[in-house]
């Protein structure tokens, strides 16, 4: 394999820094710096020299290099400027890597040879040399993006999208690299309408067998508490809800959901989650609170989620953000499962407390949906999508994220919050919870409804054969 080291930009000619006429690397011992995950940009220092003999050719090489300096500086703040990439591949490295360049700096070498002026005797060999400083992103990226596999819609309140699985035109492929892959595009479309979206990432590296993760905890599978009973409902996940009759208007434990009810593979459900409660009232208002603990605990000793007021009815069902809590609640570094069995977590429990505030309506509890928080997540809201619309998420090579919709081309830029929303190496899932605009029935979504999603794997140093 031939060594590659070049500066590249769409719309400009590549500037090769090795094995080419023009500029060449004079320091054979140069190796790229190693970045840090989420770290600052990396500074590379190369010694380069021109091997042209014609002053016009030297000038052309200088002009080309200086143009890239200008473009790189502009691209750091001008989002419409094409990015300058540093492309690298060691002589026996299988794959090429590229890193987005923030700035190029030139400094004349002390031993630089002259390029003109004076008498012929002072014009030594017309080979100017420079220290070339390159300020680049800390990650090397794969030079071409991979496609996200297509996901057909399914009637689920929460679904686990396997972005490493085979698709119609995509072969199964676990994420490679040593840091998360940058999402170049995630395209999601509703089959009916979409108002809000929660997505959490879950990797096999951290969380064991992904297929054992339970993304939907049906309320009707729990232990009913005060004034609560199961009730069939075709609009609900699992076609049933837990219905809480008015009874008293005071706080009471209406339902308990215990991990063992849903999974015997406790470890595969470990993680930190935002807990969503899908529910509604038949009329009036209720207040709910999720409490997190273990089945043998006194309710007052549990970790309390925020209290939320529910005023929407079945046709406008929504998900309540019921708090952040981990499975297990113990410190796994102090008390690992190797010393204390994960069986302890069989009793991990969510209690749903509720009280009626106004009116005489019923509270109907559909399901609880854990959205993973411990690796990366995205929430988008104020969406107004219908079946012909799409919402896009993308991250630039400079780490800037954005979300937009395609209602009548780009319809709007809805608010969103994203944290480390990058695909962890290895096998992984996106846990996706969609909610209709203004609440409603369970929404079905599809991935790659319009443009095909893309991701680009990344490395902190060398790529090798990955």
């Amino acid at each position: 394999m031939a060594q590659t080291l070049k500066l590249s930009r769409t719309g400009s000619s590549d500037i090769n820094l090795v094995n080419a006429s023009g500029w060449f690397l004079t320091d054979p011992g140069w190796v790229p710096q190693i970045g840090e995950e989420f770290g600052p940009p990396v500074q590379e220092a190369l010694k380069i020299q021109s091997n042209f003999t014609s002053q016009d050719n030297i000038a052309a090489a200088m002009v080309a290099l200086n143009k890239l300096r200008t473009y790189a500086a502009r691209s750091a703040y001008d989002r419409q400027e094409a990015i300058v990439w540093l492309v690298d591949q060691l002589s026996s490295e299988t794959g090429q890597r590229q890193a987005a360049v923030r700035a190029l700096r030139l400094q004349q070498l002390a031993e630089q040879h002259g390029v003109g002026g004076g008498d012929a005797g002072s014009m030594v060999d017309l080979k100017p040399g420079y220290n070339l400083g390159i300020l680049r992103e800390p990650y090397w990226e794969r030079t071409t993006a991979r496609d996200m596999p297509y996901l057909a819609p399914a009637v689920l309140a929460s679904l686990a999208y396997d972005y490493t699985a085979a698709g119609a035109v995509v072969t199964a492929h676990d994420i490679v690299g040593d840091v998360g892959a940058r999402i170049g595009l995630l395209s999601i479309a509703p089959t009916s309408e979409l108002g809000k979206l929660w997505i959490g990432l879950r990797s096999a590296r951290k969380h064991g067998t992904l297929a054992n993760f339970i993304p939907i905890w049906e309320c009707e599978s729990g232990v009913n508490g005060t004034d609560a009973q199961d009730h069939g409902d075709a609009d609900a996940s699992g076609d049933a809800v837990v219905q809480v009759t008015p009874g008293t208007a005071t706080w009471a434990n209406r339902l308990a959901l215990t991990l063992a009810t849903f999974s015997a593979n406790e470890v595969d459900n470990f993680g930190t989650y935002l807990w969503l409660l899908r529910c509604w009232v038949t009329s009036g208002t209720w207040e709910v609170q999720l409490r997190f603990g273990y089945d043998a605990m006194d309710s007052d000793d549990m970790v309390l989620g925020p209290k939320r007021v529910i005023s929407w009815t079945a046709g406008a069902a929504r998900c309540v953000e019921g708090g952040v809590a981990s499975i297990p609640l113990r410190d796994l570094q102090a008390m690992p499962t190797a010393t204390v069995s994960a069986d302890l977590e069989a009793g991990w429990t969510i209690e749903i407390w509720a009280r009626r505030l106004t009116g005489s309506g019923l509270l109907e509890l559909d399901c609880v949906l854990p959205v993973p928080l411990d690796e990366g997540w995205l929430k988008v809201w104020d969406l107004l999508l219908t079946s012909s619309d799409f919402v896009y998420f993308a991250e630039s090579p400079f780490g800037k994220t954005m979300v937009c919709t395609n209602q009548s081309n780009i319809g709007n830029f809805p608010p969103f919050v994203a944290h480390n929303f990058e695909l962890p190496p290895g096998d992984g899932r996106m846990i996706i919870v969609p909610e209709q605009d203004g609440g409603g029935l369970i929404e079905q979504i599809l991935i790659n409804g319009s443009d095909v999603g893309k991701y680009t794997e990344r490395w902190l140093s060398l790529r090798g054969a990955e």
Partner: protein
Amino acid sequence: MTYSLDLYQRPIATGGHLGNYADVAREWQRSIRAIGGYFQGSFTLSEEDLTLAELDWFYDEYFGGQLKEQAFMMPTWEGLLYEFRYVKGGREYRRTLDPERWHNRVKVYYTFPDSVDTNQGALTYNPAANSFQDAAQNFDDWDVAAGDATHQVSVTNSDGTNGWGFLGTAFTTTNPSDSVYVFEDLERATAGWNGDVTGKTPSSYTISAVAGTGARQVVDCRENADASAEYGHMEYVATLGGTAPELATALQAKELVEFAWPRSWKMGGGSASVEERGPATLEVSCVGFWATLNWRYRETSRIATAASLLSTLVTASEFVTAGRIDTNDLRVKVDCDPAPIRLGDALEEIVLAGDRSGNIWQGGVYDSRLFYYEAAPTTVEYYELEDGSLVDLAMNPVIPALVRPGFLLRDLSAPSGTQPTGTSSVWDDPTVAYVDEVTFVAPDTLEYHLMEEEESVTALRRMIERGEVLPVPH
């Protein structure tokens, strides 16, 4: 980034997402109070992150906009852009929603003798020199033949101008004593009028006693509707001592002219120096929607249970609605005499009063501008470890942005002391304290403040002294 800072149009407008400023909002921090809810916030925008044109646009167009923070995918704070301090090119400009510097609905209360009579019939200036006639009036009751005047007349002309003076002797022009001589001064030394009478046509008048006991008078509300439509209603009640109606009206007009719009004020003087200027910065102060409760006044005194009165006061606000108001049958009074009281101030005092058993209550404005009112908790929710860190009951470190005040904190390294005899209340546990305010300092710092119980006791005593909390009959 674990949080977003989304800016929306002003609350008087509908919708309008303007962008997420989390990346460029330097030094973002905000506080939440157990009494008040989402309270204050601040951040700085810099020319190092935004262009000067973008900063100008932000200063001109986004003032008063709504700011909403979401952390870990949950709503965690919301409020308004309340004050801007913009420094560029060595000059400083400010805009503010401080009610003393911005109000578009003004009412004036002042003290002035009650009117004893008004116009009865056809009015004429000067039927004889320096006199006034009401053809259907009899001025005998108020005229004076010797000594100081006892009454004055204040006339409104057909063009809105005024003339006024002190009454002398009554005389007959058409009907008995239907006319009266008018003097400029109380001592009746100079015959004539004050104000505008020459060439004017009188349309109405009032007679009032000069030495009578002052009574509370009001100049009815006037509004700059354009300003209200753009920013919402900011009421302002000016109170004056004894003064004339014309001055009260003039003050009202002046307030509206000067303060109806939250205009940009250039601060300080100028400088001709060409010294190096730093990058432009825009310091933004925010307030939660509790502050908007003080954009309106309560003008009628009322006695009711705390819960009932709170509900009434919240309903009277422009932007806040009741989320949950728990039952509290403590009778309280909102006292609007002699001066009206701002809604937020009235609410705060009621919440501070607690309940009949002396328990602490808390209330504030939270997500979606909903007001919540409830008794303070009676169980511990968080622990403070020896190293100063804050953990939940499962010993997991808290997520700073998600913590709300109004909780009991047990200090695990505190001297245990002794619980007073006869009480098992956690409030009497010497290792437990009530956290009444938290401040999140981005990206990951939490500061919290412990309530000194004396604060509520003092507030309650003050209210009892003023008669605003009534003894409950048993």
